């Protein structure tokens, strides 16, 4: 259930991958009781990049970005991207996209790489 006045955003944060930096980045979200339905961290040049999603109200949006900005070893915070759909919305719409869901179900089987499944699942949503 999504609280009123909240929006799901996708955040991209570049950071130096030193002890605890990723956990500090995520902790700034979780200390507010927010869920992290999607987190993906990877190398990005000589740095790392974490992409995460959280459903926040406008006040929290500002708080998160400002707190990340003063976290040691955080280098850059991209402008958050508003996500127009969510996992739940996607699941509720299951009947209409059954073919796609079937594809995903296959993708989520142990024979398929999980990464490809996630990429397909989230491919439809990002939009400014």
């Amino acid at each position, binding site marked *: 259930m999504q609280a009123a006045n909240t929006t799901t955003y996708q955040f991209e944060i570049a950071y*130096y991958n030193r*002890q*605890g930096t990723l*956990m*500090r980045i995520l*902790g700034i979200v979780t*200390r507010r009781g927010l869920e992290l339905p999607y987190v993906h961290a990877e190398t990005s040049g000589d740095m790392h990049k974490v992409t995460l999603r959280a459903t926040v109200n406008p006040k929290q949006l*500002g*708080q998160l970005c*400002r*707190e990340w*900005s*003063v*976290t*040691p*070893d*955080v*280098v*850059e*915070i991209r402008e958050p991207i508003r996500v127009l759909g969510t996992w739940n919305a996607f699941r509720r719409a299951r009947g209409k996209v059954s073919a796609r869901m079937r594809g995903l179900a296959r993708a989520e089987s142990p024979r398929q790489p999980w990464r490809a499944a996630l990429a397909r699942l989230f491919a439809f949503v990002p939009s400014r």
Partner: protein
Amino acid sequence: MRTGAEIVWACLRAEGVDTVFGYPGGAVIPLYDALAGSGVRHILARHEQGAVFAAGGYARSTGKVGVAIATSGPGATNLVTGIADARMDSVPLMCITGQVRTGLIGTDAFQETDVFGMTLSLTKWSRLVLSTEEIPEVVAEGFHLARSGRPGPVLLDFPVDLLKGKADVRIPASYRPKPRSHGPHSARTEFPAAALRSLLLSSGKPTALVGAGVKLAGAHSALERLLDALQVPTGATLHGLGAVSHAKPYFLGLVGMHGSRAANVALNEADLLLVFGARLDDRVTGDPSKFALGARIVHLEIDPSQVHRVRNYELPILGDLAETIPQFHDAIADLRLPSWGDWKKSLAELRNSENNAPGKALPALHFFDELYALLPENAIVVVDVGQHQMWAAQRYRAHSPRGFITSGGLGAMGFALPGAIGVQLARPTALVVCISGDGGIQMNIQELATIRRYGLAIKVLILDNKFLGMVRQWQQLFYDHNYAETDLSDNPDFVMLAGAYGIRGRRIGVDPSQINGLPADTREVLKAFLDSPDPELLVFDCPPEANVFPMVPSGAAISEMLLEEN
């Protein structure tokens, strides 16, 4: 070749550390083994929380980084409250913990805790050190981060085998941060002089708010010069007290939950709020959604995470207040400012007619007046948490930027006694008065032994109302007098207890026959207490059901002040 422990001490010396506070244990024995000859003075607390609060007091009174040492496991967990306190109040703190040897990490070994993990959200930066060779770099980086920008706590966790291991390392003379490794640096922008001037000229009701950031930046003199030029009504947060003289006609006193009526009215009815180094927390704003609704806010702040907290401010000015306050002054130097006569007059009238109807708190308030009247200029009061803290703040009149020290953000009971130890060691010639309640003093009372051990002439004042007074006040006002578990009427005899620690104790009570509610010899007792060259403890038997007013109920707007019980 030096051992890791010797390298740690050498690094501390290189950072200018002369005093550390700690408590030994298995995982830090190598560190203590190398202490002799390190050139660093170690103060043995009687509990790790005492050590970390003492380090916090040391840092708060000097601006230098305080250092606390504890062993792994319970020693490390006992530091956590002090780390949180330092985080909330922007105190530069270096915590050094021992850890089980590297091969045992993650095995739930004896006295193993993941102190690195458990303090991630409290520390500004931390490191589980994984090689003896990297010690100089991480210590230097830790100190740099603890004291730079908005100061805060740093933790370094040393596995015991690293402290015993040897390495041939060079201690860097100075630390150079890696480019952009400590947070993105906002592009330096021009000071918004024109916008500031425009806001000031269009304002009919300007108010200034002074916070801890002014003192941390050492910008109190510059701010006072600016305020002298502006002549706008001014209030101070708990940590802002002492930055501006109470003698200034524009100064209205403490703001917030127990602030003065004039200061709170000025804050809430302003159409322009000039905020200097304050983070506008809930104890200052009351209900943020109802705070200063008609005000445009100019916020001078070093920490970008602290702006726009209440709502979007018109003019955030990010930067070191030591730079931005003089820039502010330059910006208005040639400005013909309005007099704001009606606004100032109405607030002055409010201030002069301030009647807090103290009721049963009358003796306590007069007691603080008597105490403060006797304190020399170099006195530092270190105050615990509760009703006495608010009375101490309401009556504080000294103009001393580091003269009023307390745990403000975290509100950690038990801070004052060990905090005063750190202050006294940092400022040996200052008269240090620890002001605590009967609840708070018992949270770290073992530190009386530390006072005795080092012969510190700290004056320990206990306001004993035989209650957890502030909680009881809330229970009385908002929970229908249900004093659940706040009765401390079975307190020990603090005078006898002081005697057991080898410290002289005295007691003073109230005298209802006197106008001020205090015995006629109060001043003499206080003078003897303060003039003693030895540590002293004085118990003031305070009326049990005295309350602190004014009071903004939690969650209410600051305009909804309670001025008296009825």
